[in-house]
C-alpha cells in the first residue's frame, strides 16, 4: 500500500446530526486507516469565566455546556460548593435532587438514542427520541419552571417543592415511556439493519476502556461496573435500589443497550424516590434562619424558596473541594479552589464527553467509512459538553 493511496477526508465541523466538531480521517478507498478528532469549535471558556463570577452565578454557567443534562452539571457543582461552605441539604431536598437528576438522565438518553438513530439513517428513531424526551422536559418544567436550564439545585437545597399531583402525572409519564420502549425494541433495536450496523462494530475492550479512562455507559458497555452513584453514593442514592447496567460485548450495540437499560433503572429510581420522599424543609437550616418571617410564610404557601440575601455574596473559607457525580454521559468532575473571596480562585470542570473524546481515534480505525457514524452515534458524544 503506497502512501499516495491514502487521502485525508475532513468530516465537519458542520454535521447534519450532532454539534460542531471535525473528524480528520485518513482513508484508503473506503477503509479508515487513521482518524483524529479536531475539537474546540464550541469552546466557551467556562473555567475562565467561572473565575470572574460569583459562586451563585456559576450555576447557570456550568449548565450551558450540556443542555440535555443540566441537572447533573448543576448538582456536581453545588456538591463541591457545599463542601467548601460546610453546608448540607436536608433529606427532602436530597430526594428532589435525585429525582430531577434521573429525569434528566432519561431525557439525555432519549436524546442520545435519537441522534444515534439519525446517524444510522433511521429518521423514525430520531423523531421518536426527540418526541419522547419532551415528556421529561414537560415534567421538569412543571417542577422547576424551565424546560432545559433549571438552575434548580442551590447551595443548601433546591428552589421548589413538588407541585400538587406530581406523583400521579409522573406515573402516567413513566407508563407511557415504558410502552414506548417496547416500540423502540420492535422497530429499532431488534431491527436487522440496526444489528448489522452495530453488532461487532467499534469494539472497546475492557482493559482499553480502563486504560483510556473512559466513563459512563461507554465504560459499562465494556464490562466495567463503575458508577459513581454506587462507588461513592451521594444525595438519596444510598437509600434507593437500582442496578448498574453492565454488558460485556463492548461494541456499538452494547452501548445502545446499556442506555436503554439505564432508562429503565432511572424509572425505577424515580418511582421509589417519589414513594419514599420524606417531609420537611427543602433548604438547609443555615439559610432558613436568615429568612424574615414574612418571606417564610410565602415559602410555605407557594412551596418555593426565597433566596436569603447572603446567597448573592457567598464567601467560602479558604480551601479546595472535589466532587464527582454520575452525569448521563458519565462521571463529571469539579475541583474548586477558594481563596476566601466571592469568586473561585481556580475552577476546574472535566466533563464526561471530554474524557471520552479519545475513543474517536481509538475505535474508528481499520473500519469502513460507513462505520464512522455508527460508532460516533453510539458514543453519545456531545461537542459543547466536551469543549466547555
Amino acid at each position, binding site marked *: 500500500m503506497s502512501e499516495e493511496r491514502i487521502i485525508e477526508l475532513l468530516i465537519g465541523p458542520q454535521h447534519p446530526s450532532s454539534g460542531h466538531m471535525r473528524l480528520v480521517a485518513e482513508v484508503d478507498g473506503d477503509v479508515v486507516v487513521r482518524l483524529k478528532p479536531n475539537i474546540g469549535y464550541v*469552546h466557551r471558556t467556562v473555567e*475562565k469565566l467561572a473565575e470572574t463570577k460569583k459562586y451563585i452565578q456559576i450555576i447557570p454557567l456550568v449548565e450551558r455546556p450540556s443542555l440535555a443534562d443540566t441537572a447533573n452539571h448543576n448538582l456536581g457543582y453545588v456538591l463541591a460548593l457545599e463542601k467548601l461552605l460546610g453546608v448540607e441539604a436536608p433529606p427532602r431536598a436530597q430526594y428532589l435532587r435525585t429525582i430531577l437528576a434521573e429525569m434528566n438522565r432519561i431525557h439525555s438518553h432519549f436524546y442520545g438514542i435519537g441522534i444515534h438513530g439519525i446517524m444510522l439513517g433511521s429518521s423514525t428513531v430520531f423523531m421518536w427520541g426527540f418526541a419522547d424526551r419532551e415528556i421529561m422536559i414537560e415534567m421538569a418544567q412543571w417542577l422547576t419552571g424551565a424546560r432545559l436550564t433549571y438552575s434548580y439545585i442551590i447551595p443548601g437545597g433546591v428552589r421548589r417543592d413538588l407541585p400538587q399531583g406530581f406523583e400521579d402525572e409522573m406515573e402516567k409519564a413513566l407508563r407511557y415511556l415504558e410502552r414506548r420502549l417496547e416500540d423502540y425494541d420492535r422497530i429499532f433495536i431488534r431491527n436487522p439493519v440496526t444489528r448489522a450496523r452495530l453488532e461487532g462494530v467499534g469494539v472497546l475492550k475492557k482493559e482499553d476502556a480502563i*486504560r483510556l479512562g473512559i466513563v459512563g455507559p461507554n465504560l459499562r458497555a465494556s464490562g466495567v461496573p463503575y458508577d459513581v452513584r454506587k462507588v461513592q453514593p451521594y444525595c438519596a442514592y444510598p437509600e434507593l435500589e437500582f442496578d448498574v447496567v453492565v454488558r460485556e460485548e463492548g461494541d456499538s450495540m452494547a452501548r445502545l443497550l446499556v442506555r436503554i437499560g439505564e432508562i429503565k433503572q432511572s424509572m425505577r429510581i424515580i418511582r421509589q424516590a417519589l414513594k419514599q420522599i420524606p417531609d420537611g424543609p427543602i433548604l438547609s437550616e443555615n439559610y432558613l434562619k436568615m429568612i424574615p418571617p414574612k418571606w417564610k410564610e410565602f415559602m410555605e404557601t407557594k412551596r418555593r424558596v426565597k433566596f436569603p440575601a447572603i446567597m448573592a455574596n457567598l464567601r467560602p473559607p479558604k480551601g479546595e473541594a472535589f466532587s464527582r457525580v454520575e452525569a448521563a454521559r458519565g*462521571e463529571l468532575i469539579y475541583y474548586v479552589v477558594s481563596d476566601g473571596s466571592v469568586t473561585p480562585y481556580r475552577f476546574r470542570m*472535566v466533563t464526561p464527553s471530554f474524557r471520552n473524546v479519545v475513543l474517536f481515534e481509538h475505535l474508528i480505525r481499520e473500519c469502513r467509512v460507513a462505520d464512522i457514524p455508527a460508532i460516533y452515534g453510539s458514543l453519545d458524544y456531545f461537542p459543547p459538553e466536551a469543549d466547555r
Partner: protein
Amino acid sequence: MDSRSEAGLESIIEKISQSLRELSTEIGTKDEIVTVQVEPDNLLEVAKKLKEIGFDHVKSVTAIDLPEQKELEVVYHISSLGNLDLAKVIVVLKARVPSEEPHLPSLIEIWPSSKYLEREEYEMLGIVFEGHPELERLLLPDDYEGPPPLRKEFEVKTEGIQA
C-alpha cells in the same frame, strides 16, 4: 457507609502513605481524598508506585497559577476504574513548577488517559509535558495569540457591566 468498608478505606490510605513516604514531601488525608505533594523530579516515580497499587487512570490534570510565588501548582486527580475498592479513594498529586518555564514529565506512558488532559493544560496554562506525542493546540482557535488564558495575567474584558 458500613464499618467494614470504612476499614478498607483506611487500609488503602495506609498503603498509599507507606509506599510514597520516601518520595513525597507531604501527605494529607481528608475523607476519601489523599493529597500527595511531590517534587517534580519524583513525579514519574510516584506515578509508577500508584500504578502498582492499582490506580489505573487520571481523572483530571490542572494547575493553579500562583503569580506571587511565580509558581504553578500542577494538580492530578487519580483513581481506579477496575478496582471498585480503590475507586472510593481519590489521590491528588501536586507538584510545583516555576511559572516562567514550567516543565514536567508527561504521564502518558503510565496513564494513557492523561493524553487529552495534558494537552488541554498545555494550551490553557502553558505547561510543557515532556514526552507527550501531541502537544498541540486543542480547544483554542488556531489564530489565538496571547498568554495561556487560564494564567492570572490573562484578564477577561468586560463591557463595563459588573455582572
